[in-house]
């Protein structure tokens, strides 16, 4: 007995003592401190992919000859080896984002998870916090998130864009809308991109905003964050082009979403208001985008409510729409939701009930107006939905009448090879006629349907295919020689650009009377691994990597099939049969319009920048060009904040007889130029300003350089560049161009203007344009070797609100057969003669964080910094410079439109200072002063 008592007492004592002992310990994590340095040279881990950072080999300043103004000395608020998340907050971060951001401090693009982060994402794997979250979306405020300010667009207002005056181009239909739903980056993850750009030219640039009615920044996942905020550069680009851009709320039970992950999505206050609604509105307002695409696949094929009851979601949508409708805030008033659920359809079954009640219920979540009517809701139907299936719904719901952009069907261009340039989109937008043709049904005009292109990987897959498979290309990319890396990536970028344009223009590079293929036919071109076939087949890609290796492919069945279906020439049009692009169907829009006033001066200019380049150029008002291309060095960059308005009719090139030029006959005798001879390209090696020009050439080589085209001397080539909608002619237009011919062979270049009745051209009518004519121009050769050609549109007579200027472009009359012409700038009403704007004054440099890392006996510094500007409107953009202490020169290391920036892997001078310079360009492209400051590290 006593033994038992003794044992029990001993156990009790032991419990108390051991508990006391164990409780003395505290959890501790050194995860963030233990993270390795981030390798920016690796593209596939979210790095830039090049070795540009601190590898500048030149011996001269890239800043040029400007005066400098010394600002205050900066003492950073924080200096540490890693970003201490207990001191600063960057909102929700995917764990890979943390691994990148913790050791660099880089501000990353945003996804938000409803519940927030698990502590283990930050390496705090305490069992006490296993079920605990931080950074719930409901806790987010921009003031607490030090990344948020980096991701705010500087172009908040959406420019006014209208349909071009002549929207009767072949099958173009003003009732058809196209919404692009696309990943913003090549690598599809938010941790890849940031608010400050990258040291690489290779990225997914969006090049055809003229044919895009809205852009859905597709992305998000249960692990990366369900709410994806649009890429800030794309937001700016969309707004410049007059288009709304939407974030994504991605909820998919098919891909891992579970009920517990929606805790803070469905949280309500005591009045029944869903808290997420206010937060979504706040985010859209702060980040300046226009709403959300809701991908509701929450239940993943399981019964409703398994993960999320759709009635809960619809209540959230309804509250969102009602708050937006009742808001006094101008931006909030514009917010929209676009709804999609799996198997979404508005078709009825034989008993008269809607086949998918979920979709139908979604249509009733719009705000109710004071007159009792309900606003329609934008709905995207499932893949393959036909216009006929919506017929009864549209007849029964008057609030959808005339809202052609509200019901969309969807197509996945990534699904089958060459869908981008051959798929007949009319099969999605028009009902089948009695003749089994997809044609307009005039009796049911409301059946015209918009379509959404689920272009997740789409055109980038071709570049990815060659990137992954070519040993030759890979060895160049892995070279320690930056120029080899840059040229290789430029080649990939050109492939990206080419296949993206094919998606809009078709494989033949023209919009016209094309006929594409139905999906079933394209399905026979089965597998993604045959993407290389198209690289081999396309004549615009002049040099093929690993040509010998891939020569065998030319005998393959798939190669031959792709050739016969897609790339067999069509004799009538010098193009390829079965070519069809989105722009063949959608009327393009333009921001060159004067609908707001007859005497309005547009002050429009574009350098056709795609927001990237291999060097950064500028030309001041006196014609002096300066660039980062000193000593032949490269500065590879991507920052879509700097992107411009791109050509409307990108590569519509016609050739005709000179004798007919300037007469009405021109329209009857010209024909399209075969892309094997001449086509349009973004030219990154021949630049006037920013990172590229547009060139007419014959293709591009292994270095991504545009090669000369094949011209026919004596003919006139009409290059229709920009669509317009001008009701008045009191505008001045200029282009800046350059050719690579000898002086005696320099072609005659003149300016052409298309004039047409507003909305000219009936659908299906085959004609090129109305009344394209040459007008009187003046030419000035600038110091930099480029030529400015200027014309006064008042030369064009008969311009009125009913008869408008619809196109502006160039006519080129070659004297030899082998050259290329580049256009570096277009302006409308831009004052070019005098310095007309002031330069900005910068003050108060500051740094909120410096991350200090050791690497191979070197201390490298990553710095977040900002400055004040007296008037942000004075600044077109900033270039950022770093004073290299070893070479004692200023080196170009960044560019932005925002007054804050991040630089990586800098080395301090012997006094432990980083020396940074900011060069603001004013609206006349003049950079008068380099504002410099030292940062004590």
């Amino acid at each position, binding site marked *: *007995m006593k033994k038992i008592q003794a044992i029990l007492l001993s156990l009790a004592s032991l*419990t108390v003592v051991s508990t006391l002992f164990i409780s003395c*310990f505290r*959890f501790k994590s050194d995860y963030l401190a233990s993270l390795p340095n981030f390798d920016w040279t690796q593209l596939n881990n979210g790095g830039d992919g090049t070795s540009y950072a601190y590898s500048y080999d030149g011996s001269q300043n890239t800043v040029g000859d400007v005066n400098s103004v010394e600002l205050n000395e900066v003492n950073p608020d924080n200096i540490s080896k890693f970003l201490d998340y207990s001191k600063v907050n960057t909102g929700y971060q995917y764990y890979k984002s943390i691994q990148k951001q913790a050791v660099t401090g880089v501000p990353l693009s945003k996804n938000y998870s409803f519940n927030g982060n698990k502590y283990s994402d930050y390496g705090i794997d305490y069992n006490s916090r296993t*079920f*605990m979250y931080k950074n719930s979306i409901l806790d987010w405020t921009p003031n607490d998130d030090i990344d948020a300010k980096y991701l705010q667009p500087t172009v908040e207002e959406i420019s006014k864009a209208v349909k071009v005056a002549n929207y009767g181009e072949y099958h173009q239909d003003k009732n058809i809308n196209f919404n692009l739903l696309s990943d913003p980056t090549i690598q599809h993850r938010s941790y890849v991109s940031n608010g400050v750009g990258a040291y690489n030219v290779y990225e997914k640039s969006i090049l055809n905003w003229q044919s895009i009615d809205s852009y859905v920044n597709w992305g998000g996942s249960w692990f990366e964050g369900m709410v994806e905020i649009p890429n800030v550069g794309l937001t700016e680009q969309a707004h410049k082009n007059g288009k709304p851009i939407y974030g994504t709320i991605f909820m998919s039970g098919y891909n891992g979403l579970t009920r517990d992950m929606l805790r803070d999505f469905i949280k309500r206050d005591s009045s029944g208001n869903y808290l997420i609604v206010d937060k979504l509105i706040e985010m859209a307002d702060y980040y300046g985008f226009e709403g959300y695409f809701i991908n509701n696949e929450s239940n993943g094929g399981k019964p409703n409510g398994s993960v999320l009851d759709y009635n809960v979601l619809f209540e959230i949508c309804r509250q969102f729409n009602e708050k937006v409708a009742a808001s006094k805030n101008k931006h909030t008033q514009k917010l929209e939701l676009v709804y999609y659920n799996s198997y979404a359809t508005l078709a009825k079954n034989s008993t008269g009930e809607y086949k998918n009640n979920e979709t139908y219920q979604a249509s009733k979540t719009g705000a109710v107006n004071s007159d009792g009517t309900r606003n329609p809701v934008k709905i995207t139907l499932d893949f393959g939905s036909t216009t006929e299936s919506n017929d009864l719904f549209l007849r029964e719901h008057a609030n959808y009448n005339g809202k052609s952009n509200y019901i969309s069907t969807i197509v996945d261009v990534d699904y089958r090879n060459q869908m981008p340039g051959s798929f007949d989109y009319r099969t999605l937008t028009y009902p089948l006629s009695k003749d089994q043709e997809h044609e307009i049904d005039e009796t049911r005009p409301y059946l015209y349907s918009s379509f959404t292109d689920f272009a997740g990987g789409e055109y980038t897959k071709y570049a990815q295919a060659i990137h992954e498979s070519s040993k030759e290309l890979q060895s160049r990319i892995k070279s320690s020689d930056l120029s080899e890396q840059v040229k290789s990536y430029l080649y990939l970028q050109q492939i990206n650009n080419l296949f993206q344009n094919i998606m809009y223009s078709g494989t033949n590079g023209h919009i016209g009377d094309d006929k594409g293929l139905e999906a079933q036919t394209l399905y026979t071109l089965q597998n993604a691994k045959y993407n290389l076939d198209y690289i081999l087949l396309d004549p615009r890609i002049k040099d093929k990597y690993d040509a010998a290796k891939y020569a065998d492919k030319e005998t393959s069945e798939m190669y031959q099939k792709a050739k016969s279906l897609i790339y067999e020439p069509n004799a009538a049009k010098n193009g390829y049969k079965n070519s069809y692009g989105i722009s063949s169907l959608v009327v393009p829009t333009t921001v060159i319009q004067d609908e707001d006033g007859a005497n309005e001066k547009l002050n429009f200019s574009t350098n056709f920048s795609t927001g990237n380049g291999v060097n950064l150029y500028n030309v001041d008002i006196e014609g002096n060009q300066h660039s980062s291309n000193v000593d032949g060095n490269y500065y590879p960059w991507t920052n879509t904040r700097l992107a411009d308005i791109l050509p409307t009719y990108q590569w519509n090139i016609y050739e005709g007889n000179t004798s007919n030029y300037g007469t009405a006959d021109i329209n009857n005798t010209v024909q399209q130029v075969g892309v094997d001879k001449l086509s349009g390209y973004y030219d990154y090696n021949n630049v006037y300003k920013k990172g590229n020009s547009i060139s007419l050439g014959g293709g591009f080589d292994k270095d991504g350089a545009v090669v000369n085209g094949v011209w026919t001397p004596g003919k006139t080539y009409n290059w229709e560049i920009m669509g317009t909608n001008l009701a008045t002619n009191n505008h001045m237009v200029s282009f800046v161009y350059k050719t690579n011919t000898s002086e005696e062979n320099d072609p005659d270049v003149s300016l052409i203007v298309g004039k047409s009745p507003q909305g000219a051209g009936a659908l299906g009518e085959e004609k090129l344009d109305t009344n394209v004519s040459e007008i009187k121009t003046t030419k000035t050769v600038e110091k930099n070797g480029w030529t400015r050609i200027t014309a006064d549109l008042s030369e064009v007579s008969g311009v009125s609100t009913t008869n408008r200027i619809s196109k502006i472009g160039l006519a080129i009359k070659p004297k030899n057969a082998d050259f290329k012409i580049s256009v570096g700038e277009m302006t409308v009403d831009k004052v070019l003669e005098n310095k007309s704007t002031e330069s900005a004054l910068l003050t108060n440099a500051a740094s909120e964080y410096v991350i200090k890392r050791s690497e191979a006996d070197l201390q490298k510094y990553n710095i977040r910094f900002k400055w004040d500007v007296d008037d942000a409107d004075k600044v077109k953009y900033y270039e950022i410079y770093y004073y290299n202490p070893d070479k004692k020169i200023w080196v170009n290391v960044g560019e932005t439109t925002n007054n804050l920036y991040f630089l990586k892997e800098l080395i301090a001078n012997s006094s432990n200072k980083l020396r940074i310079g900011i060069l603001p360009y004013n609206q006349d492209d003049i950079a008068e002063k380099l504002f410099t400051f030292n940062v004590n590290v």
Partner: protein
Amino acid sequence: MQLTQRFKKVNQQVFNKENLNFNNFSSFLVLIFKQNFRNIRTYIFCLFIPIVLFAFCVYIWNLFYADYYLTPPLIIAFSMCGYIFSSIYISIQVYELKIQNFFSRIKVLGISKITIILSYYILSLILSFLVFLIAILGLFVFAKIRNASSLLTITNLKWFVWIEVIMAYGFIIFASLLLFLTFSMVIKKRAYAYLLIFTYGIYALVFSEIILIPEITNISTVLVVLSFFSFFKYCTWVIFILSSYMNFDYWGFTQLFVKNYNNVFVSFWSVWVPISIMLLLSLTFLTLLLAKMRFSDKY
């Protein structure tokens, strides 16, 4: 009562064996084991009902309220409901034996108070841990088969926490038995004794945050205050703190407030407060019990 009669019957069987030494702890233990484990009511009241209650709690909180996770402290708390049932069951049994002068008879044979208390403690220990084991293992197997991640959270507990929890639970069972045995010994009239035992038992179940999770108790200040009158609340919180790792990192309290941990009332931040209170009260009960423990109902 049938229970008493059955007990008598077992007693007679044991007493009639001449070779048994009743001044012996193990013999008394065997006696009450036979008395209980041959009785179907023991299984119903001390095993079946607590396990059903556990399953009900898991179902309700996982499906209708929590929606998200059932965290380990909550699961452990549900699985601990068995000790209250076994304490009630034993205290009723002891009361019946007391009024039948059973203890007076065995006192003659030299069975001490301590022997009686320890023997019943071991019985309660076995019954309570059986519930605990069946509940935890059953839930684990069920969650594995159904791949229910929200129920597999129990894997968050490290081995040393299991040892802590098991040892603490062992003590809690002892403390609980002391309390209810005190009721049995102190109260004279059967009706009052039964009323007190059952009333406090139910009160303990409801207000000790064993089956009502802390988030529910937090809804009302009244509920919070009432909970402090339950001795078992302190026991529960010892388990809560140990199994949520609050003794290592105070943020462990978020495991007790899954849905919302902002602006909640946390009863104890340190494990030593409820342990101290529990020890103090247990000592009081033990003292009271030993003082008031009579071997007959004739005071």
